[in-house]
């Protein structure tokens, strides 16, 4: 799987990756879900037209059951700026059933030396998502997902994952200093360089302070050794508009502290889907 994805995204080996995708597979990226023979053409031609030929400077794979999460860091051959890309595969280890991918489109624009609006304009039309309004409060019903409820409270990392989730789920910013190691390396979408704990504090605040009735929902978690991948989204009201921002986070946990985190969202696709939003201004 790893080789097929690397070859497709660095050299344009479409056939190699296509042979790993089931006929019924779908590819979900940029807030659009693509099926059929054109899906990979659409994704790859967009990527290659901006990133061009590139190399993989770092990669990591997390596997649990039918989940395989591949984090690749690309570097275009003509520009030494890195681009983070995460592929969350559903696979039986022979074939791929679905791909949920997030690329840092702001890094892509920077690395390809294109205006953000050029990259944005070329993204596929997003699905006509309809977010029905709902009560984001739990009212003591225990209906809201926490990591320990999905992975099991007995799992070693359950406690730290709950503390990490409280950052986004409950705005519990004080947890940052408790759960991140002092020298933690934190990669967040739209930033060219690593951030430290103080800048993470500002990043979380910059999102949650612009929203009311925020609600973070876990979709899936995969744990593989020291690494944890989490698929989730943030909902909230921005004025009278409801927004949804999907994320994939990859954490490295050592000695009960987060030492490395990459949290990706697709900023340009988000801005295209929610043109009135100022979340990333």
């Amino acid at each position: 799987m790893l080789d097929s994805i690397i070859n497709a995204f660095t050299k344009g080996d479409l056939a190699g990756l296509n042979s790993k995708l089931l006929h019924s597979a779908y590819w979900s990226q940029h807030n659009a879900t693509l099926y059929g023979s054109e899906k990979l053409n659409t994704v790859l031609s967009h990527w290659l037209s901006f990133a061009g030929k590139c190399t993989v400077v770092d990669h990591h794979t997390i596997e649990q059951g039918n989940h395989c999460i591949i984090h690749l860091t690309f570097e275009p051959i003509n520009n030494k700026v890195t681009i983070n890309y995460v592929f969350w595969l559903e696979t039986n280890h022979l074939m791929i059933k679905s791909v949920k991918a997030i690329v840092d489109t702001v890094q892509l624009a920077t690395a390809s030396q294109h205006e953000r609006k050029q990259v944005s304009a070329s993204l596929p039309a997003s699905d006509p998502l309809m977010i029905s309004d709902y009560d984001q409060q739990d009212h003591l019903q225990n209906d809201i997902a926490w990591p320990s409820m999905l992975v099991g409270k007995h799992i070693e990392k359950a406690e730290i994952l709950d503390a990490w989730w409280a950052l986004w789920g409950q705005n519990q910013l004080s947890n940052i200093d408790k759960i991140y190691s002092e020298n933690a390396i934190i990669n967040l979408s739209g930033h060219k360089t690593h951030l430290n704990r103080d800048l993470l504090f500002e990043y979380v605040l910059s999102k949650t302070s612009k929203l009311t009735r925020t609600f973070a929902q876990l979709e899936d978690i995969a744990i593989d050794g020291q690494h944890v991948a989490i698929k989730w989204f943030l909902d909230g009201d921005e004025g009278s508009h409801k927004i949804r921002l999907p994320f994939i986070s990859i954490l490295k946990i050592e000695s009960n502290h987060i030492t490395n985190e990459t949290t990706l969202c697709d900023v340009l696709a988000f801005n295209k889907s929610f043109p009135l939003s100022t979340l990333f201004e």
Partner: protein
Amino acid sequence: MNHKTALTNNIMPLPQSNVTQLYWKNLPALLNPTAPKSQTLEGFDNEFIDIVDYIIRITHRIWEQKNVGLCNNYYAEYCPVHTLGAYADAVSSVVTGTLQTISAFPDRSLIGENVIWRDLGPDQGYYSSHRITSIMTNKGLSEFGEATHKTGRVTTIADCVCFENKIVYEWLVRDNSFLVKQLGIEVLDASEHFAKIPTHPKFEEWRQAEICRVRAQQQSEHQYKTPVDKAVLEFSSKWLDTLFNQKNFGKANVFYHINAKLQWPGGRQAVGIPGIKGTIIQWLASCPDAQATCDHVCAVPFEQETDVVDIAIRWSLTGTFSSKDKKLSAYCGQNFFILAASHLRLVSGKIAQEWTVFDEVAAYANLIRDFNSTNDNSGAK
């Protein structure tokens, strides 16, 4: 899937069998099955190994290979087909409809997502509930209006009774509101266009009878003798009754996992119980006195996993239309009717994933037809 809930709702593993499972099978393998026959398939062509194989291969031959004339082979000469917007019962109508759809959407490809089935016994054949994702580009005049030249995808659930190699009865639901939005057409505009298409005389008869039946909470006349797993039947009836009839949304956690995923018509997507409750509440608010009936249930195990079950439910709902949407306000007070199908994937007794399909475009078109008919009869213009 992370679903760490203990076995609940008494859903026990269904009997395993070797009937084809679609999920991890690639198309070439599905079109060239090598496994031995796993069902008797009395009266079916010898080439088919089971009901799933039959459904997948005939669909491929008719739609992808464009052998539209094969409808004459695989549909009975008299085959009632119900959709929320039309009725047909002659195989020639099926041929006409298929041809017109392919003409409007020439590259339409059908991806079989799942076939959930039930053996109805030697006298009645098999019931299949086929969930399909179609991808298609609108290149010609369709029931929604002029060609838009845009590509969209749509989920369809086709519930068919198959007897002796032919489909003899069909209920077909398609998420047309999601499709038209991708084609750049307003849902209500599509409904207005759709409402102008004349319907078969039996359509109104059927719709009015269904509205009366569902309002009276009577069961569908289409009942079959072979048993359905009692726990599956109970879960399905309670799910529909608790949420849609009793409207006790606080009990959603009895039915759904905390990270359950839901796909509903028109692009409604939710993950988790708050979002799922919100989706159903917001939709039911346009028909607050809605009553639903559970019309058919069948279930199969998912792959060979012992605690994963796929359930197909065909259901109907009626009530008084009371939308707060300004564009729809003219139709408030009229009868609202939905023919729906849901596929539920249960893990350890709770829903991990739900796909619910009904045709909002047709539902609104019926409101428009009723409105126009009343106003024509009263002389209003």
